C-alpha cells in the first residue's frame, strides 16, 4: 500500500477522522470525544457542532447495533468480526459522514424500503412520521425501530444517500453517506 497516496487522498477529501475495525462502545465514546474536540479547535458554530454530534451518535450507534458479521457464517472468525468503516470529512460549509458495513442480503430490501420512504417525505411529514414511530412504533431493546434514520433525515434536511454492493449469496456491503449543512 502506498501510504503517501493514502495520505493525499485523505488530505484531498479533508478527512478529519477515518476508522476501520471493530465497533465497540468504548470506540464510539472515543470517536465522539475526538470529533467534539476537533470541532472545538476549529471553532465550529455551536449549532453546527450539535447537529454533527447527534447525527454521529445515531450513525455510530446504528453500526454498533445493526451491523452483521460475515465471519459468523463462514466460521472464520479471524477473517472479520464486527468490522465497519467510518469516515468524517469537512468541506467548505458542510460535513460528509460515510459509514460502511456488512449486511445480510435478506435485510437489504427492508432497509432500502425504509430509507426510500424517509427520502420521499417532506420535512413536515418527516416530523409526523417521527412522532408516530416514537409513540406507536415497536422499539427493540437496542432502541431504534428505525427512528435513528428518520432523526438523521429530519436534522440534516437531506436525503439519505445509500448504496448496496453485493458481496456473495449471503452478504452485501451497505454504504451510507450523510451530508450535514449549516
Amino acid at each position, binding site marked *: 500500500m502506498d501510504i503517501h497516496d493514502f495520505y493525499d487522498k485523505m488530505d484531498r477529501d479533508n478527512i478529519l477522522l477515518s476508522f476501520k475495525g471493530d465497533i465497540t462502545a468504548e470506540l464510539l*465514546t472515543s470517536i465522539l470525544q475526538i470529533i467534539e474536540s476537533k470541532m472545538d479547535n476549529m471553532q465550529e458554530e455551536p449549532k453546527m457542532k*450539535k447537529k454533527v454530534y447527534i447525527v454521529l451518535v445515531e450513525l455510530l450507534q446504528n453500526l454498533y447495533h445493526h451491523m452483521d458479521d460475515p465471519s459468523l457464517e463462514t466460521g472464520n472468525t479471524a477473517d472479520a468480526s464486527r468490522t465497519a468503516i467510518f469516515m468524517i470529512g469537512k468541506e467548505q460549509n458542510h460535513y460528509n459522514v460515510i459509514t460502511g458495513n456488512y449486511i445480510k442480503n435478506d435485510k437489504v430490501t427492508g432497509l432500502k424500503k425504509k430509507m426510500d420512504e424517509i427520502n420521499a417525505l417532506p420535512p413536515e411529514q418527516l*416530523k409526523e412520521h417521527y*412522532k408516530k414511530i*416514537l409513540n406507536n412504533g415497536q*422499539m427493540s431493546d*437496542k432502541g431504534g425501530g428505525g427512528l*435513528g434514520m428518520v432523526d438523521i433525515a429530519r436534522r440534516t434536511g437531506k436525503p439519505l444517500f445509500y448504496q448496496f454492493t453485493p458481496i456473495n449469496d449471503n452478504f452485501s456491503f451497505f454504504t451510507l453517506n450523510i451530508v450535514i449543512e449549516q
Partner: protein
Amino acid sequence: MEIIAIESTPKTPAIKFDAKKGRLEIKGRSIPENSVEFYKPLVESLEQYASSPNSPTQVDIQLEYFNTASSKCILDVLKRLESIHRQGNQVIINWYYEEDDEDMREAGEDYQAIVNLAFNMQQVEVE
C-alpha cells in the same frame, strides 16, 4: 421511599429523584447505547411512586442532547407522569432548552403533543 441520585457521565444524564419531595430532575446528555437499561431504575421507581404520589410533582428536564434510543425511554417516563396526573395529582413539567436550540425546543413540543401534560418551556442562556 428511595431517592435516586445518578451522577452524569459523558453519555448519560444526572438523574435525581426524591419521591418524598416529589421532585425529579434529569440533566445532561443522554446518548447511551443501552438506554432501556439506564432508565430502568427511574421507570421502576416512578411506577412505585404512582401508588402514593406527591401533589404537585415537579419535573425538571434539561437535556443537551439525546439519542433516539433515549427518546423512547423519556417518553416512558413522561407517560408514567401522565398517569399520575390523570389520577388527579398536579404534575409540573419544566422543559429547559438552550437559546437557539430549536431542535430541543421542538423535541419538548413533540412530547407535549404526545402526552397529555402541559410543559413549561424554559429557555436558558448558553453557558
